[in-house]
């Protein structure tokens, strides 16, 4: 009995596939987006990730997980890689990999930290650093075509660290129903009214949804950030069951 490939990887292939690099595009000084072609890609949901595996000539292998940065687009997938100090895989992907090179990918993976356009309710997205990647996939997947309103709080150190900066601003104007707030922890641009510092309950109140709007909340970033934001949301009265989290490493991707 044949089973159709269900978008979102609910019928998961267990094997690693070849992924050929189509292009690498810098997003910030330390982050780059890589687009790959993966023949036979089954499609995916916004929020899912892939595992990327590299193999050295002596057979040594290293693998890391990366969130998909964009919605399903045929055989094309994209990830945004933040260079991690002394990171074996991130430094290869961010600095060395060339158009035409191949790596192996496994996925799409993950069924919990996902958003589908048919999901109801307003959506709150809270990103710490490179935690914005899967949330951007959700925003791109929504693409202004969904009536579901989105609010993004994006915590970054400095204005130079904003990944997808231009696109987020453009979408906040054009997409309709998308609001974006940047929260700076070290240096803010001139004219910024919010004082520099880490995210607080006041930020969630000012830029997020009221509790009685019952938003679905997606929080992604380094573990400490995600823990703090989750606690703040629950403390404000949001239902724990409406909060979905994805923790990156202590330093984030």
């Amino acid at each position, binding site marked *: 009995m044949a*089973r159709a490939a269900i978008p979102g990887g609910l019928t998961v292939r267990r094997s690693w596939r070849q992924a050929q690099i189509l292009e690498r595009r810098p997003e910030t000084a330390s982050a780059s987006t890589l687009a790959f072609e993966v023949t036979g890609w089954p499609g995916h949901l916004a929020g899912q990730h892939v595992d990327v595996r590299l193999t050295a000539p002596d057979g040594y292998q290293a693998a890391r997980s990366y969130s998909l940065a964009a919605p399903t687009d045929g055989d094309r997938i994209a990830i945004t890689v933040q260079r991690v100090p002394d990171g074996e895989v991130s430094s290869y992907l961010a600095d060395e990999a060339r158009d035409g090179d191949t790596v192996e990918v496994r996925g799409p993976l993950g*069924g*919990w930290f996902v958003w589908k356009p048919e999901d109801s309710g307003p959506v709150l997205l809270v990103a710490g650093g490179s935690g914005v990647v899967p949330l951007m996939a959700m925003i791109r997947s929504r693409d202004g075509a969904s009536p579901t309103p989105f609010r993004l709080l994006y915590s970054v150190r400095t204005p130079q660290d904003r990944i997808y900066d231009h696109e987020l601003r453009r979408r906040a104007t054009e997409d309709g129903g998308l609001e974006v707030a940047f929260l700076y922890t070290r240096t803010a641009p001139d004219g910024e009214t919010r004082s520099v510092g880490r995210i607080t309950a006041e930020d969630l109140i000012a830029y997020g949804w009221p509790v009685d709007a019952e938003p679905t909340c997606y929080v992604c970033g380094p573990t400490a950030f995600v823990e703090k934001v989750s606690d703040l949301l629950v403390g404000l009265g949001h239902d724990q069951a409406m909060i979905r989290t994805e923790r990156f490493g202590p330093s984030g991707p």
Partner: protein
Amino acid sequence: MDAPIEGFAFYDGNSLAGPLSEVFGVELTTAAGRCRSCGTTSELATFRVYGPAPGFVGRCPHCEDVLLRLVRTPDALWLDFSGVSALRILIPSDSADEEQQP
């Protein structure tokens, strides 16, 4: 998520999706496991996951006891789910997608 092999802060069960996909044909991060120690049922995606080296350890988000352990060796995957007393795995009803058999 360029997960470094070092670091003692925990991740979550989303990071188990890849290794588990090698042995399970259904998506498991949405599965819910009941902690044998404290009885709390939590989605695997919310487990506090330590690792990936020397292996993954998934702990109960409520009481921190070990729910599962996973090690990938060159030729095997070792899996201990004994900290979970029951696992509820969502299986999507896919009647719309299956081809009809005569």
